């Protein structure tokens, strides 16, 4: 269980020590463990809060507004703005990926269509050539006669 808590926060604590706490500040082993356990409690509390909002709206699916409402309920209003920005960025990213994938599909379909057209044109040409070859011997016969 301890390992699981620490896995949740290991990277964050290390990065934070460099960027947010003053230079040279150490985080004791007990403090790291305490932060990790706090993180687990936070996750349980936050998801439970968000779920309450979803249930109030008679939904089984959590959505972004449930999340933001939970943060306000838990008195973490300071998290609302960065979360909103992150959610907007996520949606833009997903939209971009979707458009890129649709464009790729269109290009692929276009390529397949033009290949098929080339193929049928080649087949028509082959048929014409065959027809010409069949007609020639008759002309020769006429000349001979």
């Amino acid at each position, binding site marked *: 269980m301890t390992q699981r808590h620490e896995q949740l926060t290991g990277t*964050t604590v290390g990065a934070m020590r460099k960027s947010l706490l003053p230079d040279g500040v150490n*985080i004791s082993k007990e403090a790291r463990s*305490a*932060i990790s356990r*706090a993180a687990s409690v936070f996750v349980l*509390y936050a998801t439970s809060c968000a779920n309450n909002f979803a249930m109030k709206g008679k939904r089984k699916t959590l959505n972004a507004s449930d*999340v933001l409402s939970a943060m306000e309920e838990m008195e973490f209003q300071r998290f609302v703005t960065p979360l909103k920005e992150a959610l907007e960025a996520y949606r833009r990213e997903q939209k971009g990926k979707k458009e890129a994938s649709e464009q790729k599909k269109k290009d692929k379909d276009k390529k397949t269509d033009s290949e098929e057209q080339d193929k049928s044109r080649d087949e028509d040409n082959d048929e014409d050539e065959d027809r010409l070859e069949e007609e020639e011997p008759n002309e020769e016969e006429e000349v001979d006669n």
Partner: protein
Amino acid sequence: MSNYPLNTATSVSQASATLTCSKAKLLAKVAPLAVFPVLEHGITILWLHISLELFVQYLATYSYRHGNGKERKALTYSDLSNTAEESETFQFLAALYF
């Protein structure tokens, strides 16, 4: 409320980079996701990850600034337990530390 610097530059791509598959699975185990099995386009796990990072940053910086550890240039267990006891925002952690 005082201003505590939060790493608000946590962009989606940065958060996604640190949100590895194993961490996402771990979050899913810790959070009662059985209660709400359907995720809205994977936003929920990403949200949990980002809000968790923000929470850890806030808890640590608040505890350091309000605690006694800064005299020794260290964030200690007692700094965190003082925070849980004295701050209304972090009161939900009180049972964890006492």
